[in-house]
């Protein structure tokens, strides 16, 4: 049985509710003054929190985020900022034809070439070379026409060391301008076809693909380009090239590498020095054993030789024991390895034939079976075939295109390709940086990043305009700077090394510290708000 209630409780500003309130003592009603004093006190506390505490908290916990040109970055990453076009300047020169006729041929050729694919990446600008031609743009090719009295059909020959097409044709009256133009058009298209294909391939899956719509890339060509690009190193302004002689036994322990390099490798690298710098080092390593993970050479009785299985080629390099560490300094290292099998394993051949192979994006390997007289020291003449193979491997590892046959033009073509891929890479880095800074609100953005981004954008713009003007060396250099700046911005150490300050930590620090203060303040504020509202309702 419940006891009757001793006293009923009455709210402080409510009137007595029932007649049974006889036993209840009620506190005297508060004077409005004291009510207001309390309200002011609470308000004062909140004011301190809002005017001092909150700004102080924000000020001490905020991080510096530099302003980034987000809109421009997006434009670049989405490919709207630059419309990639590759004007190709070809100059016609001749000793025999009058200038008027030459100009006519040039104009006709240009019209025909640009008519065929009006919206393509490459636009040809053919000019007749006279004495006072303007040298503002780079000449991609000089067609030197020579008239011969006897020859009927025109023929062309591309020089290897200079971008010159030697064209011989019969007398103008017999061959006719149209035929000559048709021949020239065909030649030029052939020369630039592969490059156009590879640039189209580069742009195909990038935001800049709009520019490459005009060119149809066949599956065969795609495969060839894919093969070439996966083999090549990523572009770098400096490459280290290490030539290593690995001998399975104690000999040969010497090679005339300095002379061999001077004769066979340095001329090539001098040509490539407009694209990258090369630093060469060489080493001799003895007692090089195979890595335990490969099956090793198998004796083949039929040929009385040792065969290296195809499956062993990828694991041939004994990374654990062979000192092939990358060189110090920036830039990747291309490893050129010459392996001399031990006396018990000669001749060592590959199962598939040949004696050399390339390891994509790492280097090239060659096996040399020494003769008796080569046992102690490899001379320059011994090294000649080795060095020529190394040169071939070097070219393919650096991503130099396989055609046209002129080395000078291949390097020019490489420059255009590299400029394009650098622009693409810098743009996508900008996009990534933009997304990163938007997604991670708590990441700090130091002012150096903003400067780098500005640099990147200005260099990208310059590269783009240089490209459209046909100044490929400048475009390439600007793109290189832009890419380096973009990488610098993205990998800014103070941004990458974000302090690990997890949310749990914040809870663990803030709750015990602020909880005891916040709870009474919030409760009192709510209560007072409630009573204030009630009082208002009552008076109204």
């Amino acid at each position, binding site marked *: 049985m419940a006891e009757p209630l001793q006293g009923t409780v009455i709210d402080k500003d409510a009137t007595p509710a029932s007649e049974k309130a006889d036993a209840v003592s009620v506190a005297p009603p508060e004077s409005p003054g004291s009510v207001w004093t309390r309200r002011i006190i609470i308000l004062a506390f909140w004011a301190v929190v809002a005017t001092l505490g909150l700004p102080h908290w924000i000020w001490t916990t905020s991080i510096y985020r530099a302003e980034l040109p987000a809109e421009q970055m997006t434009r670049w990453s989405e490919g709207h900022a630059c419309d990639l076009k590759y004007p190709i300047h070809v100059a016609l020169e001749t000793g025999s034809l009058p200038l008027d006729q030459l100009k006519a041929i040039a104009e006709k050729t240009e019209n025909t070439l640009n008519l065929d694919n009006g919206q393509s990446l490459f636009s040809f600008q053919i000019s007749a070379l006279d004495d006072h031609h303007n040298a503002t743009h780079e000449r991609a090719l000089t067609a030197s026409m020579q008239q011969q009295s006897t020859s009927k059909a025109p023929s062309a020959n591309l020089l290897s060391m200079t971008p010159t097409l030697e064209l011989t044709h019969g007398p103008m009256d017999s061959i006719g301008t149209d035929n000559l133009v048709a021949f020239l058009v065909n030649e030029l298209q052939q020369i630039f076809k592969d490059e156009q294909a590879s640039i189209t391939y580069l742009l195909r899956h990038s935001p800049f693909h709009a520019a490459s719509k005009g060119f149809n890339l066949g599956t065969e060509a795609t495969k060839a380009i894919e093969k070439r690009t996966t083999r090549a190193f990523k572009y770098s302004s400096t490459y280290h090239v290490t030539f290593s002689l690995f001998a399975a036994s104690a000999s040969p322990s010497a090679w005339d590498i300095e002379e061999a390099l001077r004769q066979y490798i340095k001329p090539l690298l001098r040509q490539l020095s407009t694209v990258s710098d090369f630093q060469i080092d060489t080493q001799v390593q003895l007692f090089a054993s195979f890595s335990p993970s490969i099956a090793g050479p198998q004796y083949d009785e039929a040929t009385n030789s040792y065969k290296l299985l195809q499956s062993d080629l990828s694991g041939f390099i004994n990374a654990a024991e062979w000192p092939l560490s990358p060189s110090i300094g920036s830039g990747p290292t291309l490893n050129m390895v010459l392996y001399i099998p031990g006396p018990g394993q000669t001749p060592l051949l590959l199962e598939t034939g040949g004696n050399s192979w390339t390891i994509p994006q790492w280097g090239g390997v060659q096996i040399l079976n020494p003769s008796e007289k080569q046992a102690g020291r490899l001379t320059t003449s011994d090294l000649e075939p080795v060095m020529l193979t190394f040169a*071939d491997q070097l070219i393919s590892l650096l991503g130099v295109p396989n055609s046209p046959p002129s080395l000078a033009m291949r390097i020019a073509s490489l420059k255009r390709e590299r400029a394009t891929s650098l622009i693409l890479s810098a743009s996508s880095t900008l996009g990534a940086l933009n997304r990163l800074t938007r997604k991670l609100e708590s990441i700090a953005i130091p002012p150096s990043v903003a400067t780098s981004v500005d640099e990147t954008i200005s260099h990208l713009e310059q590269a783009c305009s240089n490209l459209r003007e046909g100044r490929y060396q400048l475009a390439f250099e600007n793109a290189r700077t832009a890419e380096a700046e973009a990488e610098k911005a993205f990998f800014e150490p103070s941004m990458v090394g974000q302090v690990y300050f997890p949310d749990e930590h914040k809870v663990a620090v803030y709750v015990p510290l602020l909880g005891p203060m916040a709870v*009474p303040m919030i409760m009192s504020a709510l209560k007072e708000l409630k009573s204030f509202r009630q009082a208002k309702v009552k008076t109204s």
Partner: protein
Amino acid sequence: MKLRDLLQLSSVLALFTLSHASSIPNQEYSEHLYLKPLANDHLHADFNFTATTPVADYDAQHFRYFPRSLAQILQYTHTTELHLRFALGRWDEEQWGSRPRNGRREGGTGVELWAWIEGQSEEADERWSDLVNSLSGLFCASLNFVDSTKTIRPVLSFEPEGTHPSGSGGSQLLHGMLPHEVVCTENLTPFLKMLPCKGKAGISSLLDGHKLFDASWQSMAVDVRPVCPSTNSRKDECVLEIQQTVSMALSIPRSMRDRHNPIPRPPPIEEIECDDSKVWNGHDTCYPKPSTGDLGWSLAKVFGRPIKGACPLGDADGAGDISLDVPLERTVEAQGSASSETEPSGLRKFSLQAATDFDVVLPRQDTVSSSSSTHPPLYASRQMTGYGQERGGMHATLRNPHPYPQKIVYLESLPWYLKPYMHTLEIQHGNIEKMFYTPALDRVRGTHLELVIEIPADSTVELNYDFEKAILRYTEYPPDANRGFDVAPAVIRVLPRNVSDPADGNNQDEYLRTTSLLLPLPTPDFSMPYNVIILTSTVIALGFGSIFNMLIRKFVLLEEVPASPLKTKVTMLKEKIAALLGKTSKKGSDTKPSEEPGPAAVIDPNAALNGSTDGSALTNGSAKLRNVKG
């Protein structure tokens, strides 16, 4: 094929004014092993590998015997001379005599590194930092922890071993020590990789991490120095020399233990020679005789394997790849040696043969060989004194056993958290001739103290100073903070005496190092930050909460206190349950069905009238209850 043609063409076209510089055949490689039995059944083995390269080849980065990985680091950091030491254990000077190679190829416990680097002070500092970081990667050691606080620039303690061109005064000497580093197999592997024969042939085939790091004392050293015919010779006459040294003192019984059963156990009873003179000797009791004479050992047994033939790169005619320093009367059997030679002093020299295993066997011999250990130049020890977490003292004892006075350079590289009071520095029985002192800066650099002390003949010099222990920041403590902090050994250079005694042959300066020390620092309780947070919160809760409540509360008499809504609710619930219980009990006793408890509707008007607050609703609720009961 086309490319080949092109290349040849271009190479022909290219003009070269430079004539083909024929590679000078001063690329040499030699190796040597020195063995000497020590007192107390120990064996001293000293491996030395020397390779040279012409400076021209070095500059053009053509490497043959010189390791490419190290050379590139030296070039990148403009280091002209490098000395790197990995050491473990202690050389027992009292028993074994003077230190091998006069202590010039050993370092303090852990890792020690000093190098001459080109450049002005700031530039040199940067290159030094690059150097230690690169070497750290190359040797798998924590050398990257040699930062500015552990780097000093000694003035008197070290002198370049190589010939530096007289014009280049821009080289700076920097020195760093890591006493805490534990030297182990991962440091030996890169060391062996730098050798031309890679531990697969030659004396380096003996080097095995299991034995090397099991030694009582071992020291690995890498020394790179330029060697020129004279100081003013042209640069292309010079060669760069790299010396790799491994020196160790092995306990012979310990290293001859069965590898598969390494736990020491007493040998079977049949193999023990019992001492019959003891009265308790019986068929089941054996008192082993103390071993006398020289222990039998062989290279294959001590090192676990024989030498796998010669490393066929060195000069083949140079007999003496291996020298064994034993008395003349000691029996020595060599297997697989190309030539051997015995000197009157008893020193045996052997040369190796390619592709033939070589071993030296010294059978057990009862004649006690007179171990003629020479006195070291100096005995040095250093201890920490004092107690408590605030202060301490350093006490170094330097004893000169020779009948002539000696001059030494005493170098201390102290961490910044050990702050010496220089006014307390005092020396007894000797005198300080010169002093170089660089005071420490907190978290920037450590103390560098160099003293030139003259030690009188046959006397002991004591060096004392007090220091204060700093309190580190919370994050500066290592995970094992209570272990203490290692203080690098003091390096003592005994200067060559002016009066050179031809009998002594003691013209070169010698080095010795004290042991490293453990400095206990005041260590905080690492849960402290959280305790601080909790304590602060409690104080704030108490202080702020009570003051705030006092300010905003209204004070009423106890009986005037309005009941809290929660309390009334709980009471209501209680009463409901009580009512329910009461009803069921009533039902059980009185079978007569009672009237419907209609008054549920009775109270509603009241509640609707002024049920605006909880309090009044409660009043109504109790009224209702009473009504029900009534």
